[in-house]
Every structure is written in C-alpha cells, then in structure tokens.
C-alpha cells in the first residue's frame, strides 16, 4: 500500500469523488490557481477546470451560503475554509441554513455539502488562527462533525462525507498535513461516518483522543508500555454522531479513562464524552474520568507559552498514571 501524506490523501479523496460525480464542485479561497493555501487542492484546477474548482473572494459568509443554496437544488459542494477560524464568519449559513433546512422544510430540502479545512493549532499563529471549534458545530443537530487522525482515515472519511446527503463539518489538523501513512488506492475505499476506531489495544487504561491528540496518545501509550501500563487508544473519528458504544466498551475493559483534546475543556467535546461515559459506564469506572485539554486561555504567540497551551505526551502520561493511581 502506498505511503502518502494526509494532504495527498485528502487530495486523492476529492479527485476520485469529483471524477465519480459531476455534481461535486470545490470552492474556497485560493483553492484553484494558488493550488490551495495548504496545497490540499493541488492539481484539481488543471484536472477539472475553473467551472468545478473555483477561487472565491474572501467572503466566507457569502460562499458558505452559496454552497448551501447550490446544495438545495442538488449540487454537492465542497466548501473549503482556508482555516476553520474563518468559518466563524460563516456560522449563520452553516448553523441557521445548512443544519436546519431539511428539518424546517419538513424533509423537502436536503443539504449534501462538506465544509472542510484545517482547524486546531498551527505553529505560532496566535489566538485567532489556532482554534479547535468542533464543540461549536457538534452542538447542533443537523450537522455531522468529522476529524481524521491518519491519512487513510482522512481519505476514507472525506469520501464518505462527500457522498453523505447531510452537511458535514470536516476538520483537518493544520499540523498534520505532512503526516504520512499507508492509504488504499482503491477508488471505492471509504471509512464510514459515525464509527470509532481503536488505534491501539490495551487493558489498563483508555485514552479517547481525536485528531492531533491521536499520535500524541499513541506516543504516550508507547512510553507507558515501557512503564508496564497497557493503554488502549480510541479515536472516535466522527464527533457527531458519536460512537459512544466503542468508547464505553473500551472503558468497561480498562476501567480508567483519559479524554485528550486540543480544544478548550469548558462545554467541550471532552465534557460530552465524560458525561456519556458516566451515564453508560459509571459502575465500571475505577477512577474519575480525566480530561486533558487545551489551556483555558487564548492561544499565545510565544513558542514556550504555545507549547504549554497544547496537551503533550508528558501530560498524557501523567494523566494516565493519575487515573491508574500509580503515583
């Protein structure tokens, strides 16, 4: 199986799907002539032409809404946000239009659209360019929220998202575009939405991690293995709908759980996962659920402060040792 980057995997997903379905178009800032701010759409303009790969003005509310309108009448837009930070400008169309159209029209207008782009922290871009917004979007029924952590998942999940008939928020991680992994070449390879993946099996504690936190959790698990602690890493991959069953099954096996996330803890996805674990597996827990989240502060610029703001291997190791009462 070829080893490619997450960036290339996403590119393959869009290319294959655009070949399959003429109704798919890609629109966003710098997606065409510039080849994508992060080069995810590299080569697509040359392959599909400017009818289907469209550079938009810097007008997030406008082109997000344009996408939703096009989806109302049967097109299948992929709307790229240069980063999800800029999607904040488009939330009216994502939340008030895309998420609710099917419902408030009594089932008449489905919105098959993907809003995708990088989210989370990059490197030293400070507060406005380093936000993990999944808890915002996951709050709304009508939206699906997907966060891949490997190139193969990125490709398979994006293809599923494009084929899905509902609005999907597809958050890639800015620091992970260069991450490499084995990715199937089969044009029919997909990863279903709403299904978690056990990235590493273990028996002593579970780390529930998504996106950037998955490789960090795997590294922590490796280190903990050396210390005699067997850690299971569960990646929900889709935040909404959440595969709580797989998470709960893991907790029932390990009885200890750490939820790792790059977003803020308060009202966050980790809080939701913790609450659901408590609801479904309270009697199986040998320790309170532990959350490891981003610092409860805007992202700073200074390198040393930024490092402190994002959960790292050391903090995850300490958290697992804490729930295992090892120290």
């Amino acid at each position, binding site marked *: 199986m070829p080893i490619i980057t997450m960036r290339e995997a996403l590119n393959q997903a869009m290319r294959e799907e655009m070949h399959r379905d003429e109704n798919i178009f890609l629109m966003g800032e710098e997606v065409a002539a510039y080849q994508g701010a992060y080069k995810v759409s590299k080569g697509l303009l040359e392959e599909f032409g400017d009818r289907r790969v469209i550079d938009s003005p810097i007008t997030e509310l406008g082109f997000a*809404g344009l996408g*939703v309108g096009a989806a109302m009448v*049967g097109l299948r837009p992929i709307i790229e946000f240069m980063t999800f930070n800029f999607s904040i400008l488009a939330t009216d169309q994502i939340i008030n239009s895309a998420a609710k159209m099917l*419902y*408030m029209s*009594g089932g008449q207008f489905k919105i098959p659209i993907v809003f995708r782009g990088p989210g989370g922290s990059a490197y030293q871009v400070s507060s406005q360019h380093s936000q993990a917004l999944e808890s915002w979007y996951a709050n709304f029924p009508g939206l699906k929220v997907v966060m891949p952590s490997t190139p193969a998942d990125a490709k398979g999940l994006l293809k599923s998202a494009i084929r899905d008939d509902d609005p999907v928020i597809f958050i890639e991680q800015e620091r992970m575009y260069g991450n490499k992994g084995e990715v199937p070449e089969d044009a029919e390879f997909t990863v279903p939405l*709403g299904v978690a993946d056990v990235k590493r099996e273990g028996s002593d504690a579970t780390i529930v991690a998504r996106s950037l936190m998955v490789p960090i959790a795997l590294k922590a698990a490796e280190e903990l293995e050396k210390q005699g602690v067997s850690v299971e890493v569960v990646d929900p991959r889709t935040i909404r709908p959440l595969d709580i069953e797989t998470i709960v099954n893991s907790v029932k096996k390990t009885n200890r759980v750490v939820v790792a996330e790059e977003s803020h803890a308060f009202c966050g996805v980790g809080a939701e996962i913790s609450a659901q674990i408590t609801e479904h597996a309270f009697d199986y827990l040998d320790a309170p659920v532990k959350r490891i989240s981003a610092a409860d502060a805007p992202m700073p610029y200074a390198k040393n402060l930024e490092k402190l703001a994002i959960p790292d291997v050391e903090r995850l190791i300490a958290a697992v040792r804490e729930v295992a009462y090892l120290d």
Partner: protein
Amino acid sequence: MKITPMKPRSQTAQASTTGVAAATEVTDQINPEELRREHDQRRNEQQERIEEIDRETLLRLLYQMILIRRFEEKSAEAYTLGKIGGFCHLYIGQEAVAVGALGALRPDDYVLTSYRDHGHIIAKGTSPDEVMAELYGKAGGCSAGKGGSMHLFDSSVNFLGGHGIVGGQIPLATGVAFAAKYRGTDQVTLCFFGEAAVNQGAFHESLNMAQLWKLPCIYICENNQYGMGTSLERAMSLQDVSQKAPAYNMAGEFVDGMDVLAVYEATKHAVARAREESLPTLIEVRTYRFMGHSMSDPGNYRTRAEIEKHQERDPIKVFTQNLKEKNIVDDSAIADMEKRAREEVERAVQFAESSPEPAPEKLFTDIYANPLSR
C-alpha cells in the same frame, strides 16, 4: 415601454441626522398638491401598461393580490384567536411586489424570500390550504408543521423558503442561481428581501459574487421603509437601494411597488437579462406595509397620517380602479373575484382546522437525510 422611476426618497426629503423626532417630521410633511400630481402620474402610467398586457394576465394578477390580501386578513384573525403562534409577519400593502414579480417567471424558476413569505408562496402556486395549515402548525402544512409562518417551503413549485434570519436567503439564492448556471439550465432565481437586509454583509457578499460570476439571480429589495420599528432614514447612509447596484457593476432598477404592472415589467426585463445573458439585477421596489412588522407590533414609530397617505395608493385599490377605467373589469367581475378569494381562504381555514397535528415522532425526523445508526 419605459419605466419612469419615482423620485428616490433622498431627493424629496433630506435624511434626518437627529434621530426619531426629526425623521417623523419629514415623513409627515405631505404636500397635498404634490401628492395628487404624483398619484395622477402613476395612474396614467399604470393605465398605459394595462393596454399592453393581455386580459388574462391582468385578471390573474388582480386575483392573486386579492387572494393574498384576504388570506392575510384571515391570518391576522386566526392569530388573534390563538390559532397561529410564534411570529407572524403579514404582507398586507406589499402584494403588488410578489404578485408582479412572480408573474414574470416561468414555473420552473426559483424563488426565495424572508420570513414575510405568505404572499410569495401563494403567488408561486402553493395551495393556500397548505400555507394556512403550516401557520396552524399542522401535519398538512407545506413544511409539515415544522417551519411555521417564517419557514414556508414547497419543492413542487421551486419555492425555496421562507428564511428567518434577515438577509440569510441572499447567499442561498445566489447559490441556487450558481447551480442553474453550473448545470446549464436557463432557470432564473428570484430573491426577495427587505431594505433592512441591505445593511447585512450577506447582501454585499452575494451581489459581489453574483456579478463577478454572472449568475442569473434577480435581487428584489422590497423597500417598505421600515426595518421593524427603525425607519430607513435612521438605518441606512445611502437610502436609494438601487443606487448600490453600480458598486457591484450590476444593473439596478427603481420601481413603484404600489403598481403591480411596474413590478411585473421591471422583473420581466430582469428575467430576460438573467435567462438570456446570465446576468443579475438589483431591483429596488418602493412599497409600504400597512400592518405592523409582525402581529405583536403596536406600530408606535409611525403616524396614522403616514399610513393613510400610503393607503391612498393601496396597490389593489389602484389596480382595480384602473382596470375599471380601462373597461377590463366591471363591478360584478370584481365582486365575483372577491367571493372566490373569500371562499378559497375559507377552504384553507377549514383544511388547516381539520388537518392533524404532526405525530410526536416527527420531532426526530428530517434531522438527517442519512441518519447514522449510532
């Protein structure tokens, strides 16, 4: 035929810079002589237009306006009785805009509008039965009882809402027009919004894209001169909305919204431009709502005299009078139309009354088109 633009407001009265009191003063300054001259001119213009349009179209436009007026009166009544809940924005006074504009469309063209949408969906061809049932929150409603007054939808006539956020429908309509062009159909999209929506970024962003990409979308600003309780003068630095079109290099028109045929004609030109050249148009239609912003609005921000001034040019009254003077209709034909409209609305009420409430399990349907099992 030429469209004589009414004098845009800012040329007839200087915008107030001192707030509410001054603005009210300006609107109350009615010079009876000037007003009569203007009314005479408008009457003559409509009568000229009548000569150029076939009788069947004229009667259809009149009937639709009467039907919408009676429908809205009945909605107000039902709201007062507690049969209709939530927000209910009536279209009384503005009927000429939706009826005139939609009269210029083909059935497969698309329409989107704001929450003041009862008139538009009826003019697009949805049965008043389904519209009234929706206002009643019944299963037989055009949105299955899930949208209500502000979110009317009917895919069978390409009526795409009914949108509750001021200006939210403008990017959507732009996307619908984009899709038509993408697919190479010659369908046109009509997007209605109030003048208050013009102050939203969504308006600016959409018109910029529409002209940039030459999308077949017609933006119809129903300038009823109030954004809820805030007058145009207090909310907009440049009050001539049609004058904003040049900022996007777009064609702009200014139309008398109390003349259904002026709206019809201006829209026809814009439709031709959209269908044949794939170009957008911004049409400002100067109109006036006779009722409050919604049913819960006491209307303290404007005077009785101001409302009455506009009611003198009630679009249904004016059109009926002109059709009579041109011998297109007589009193008995009008009476017959009134009777038909009342009966149609009465049937709609009966339908709404007898339609069942949505089943409880409908709370959780239509959230996802592809619900996932987990």
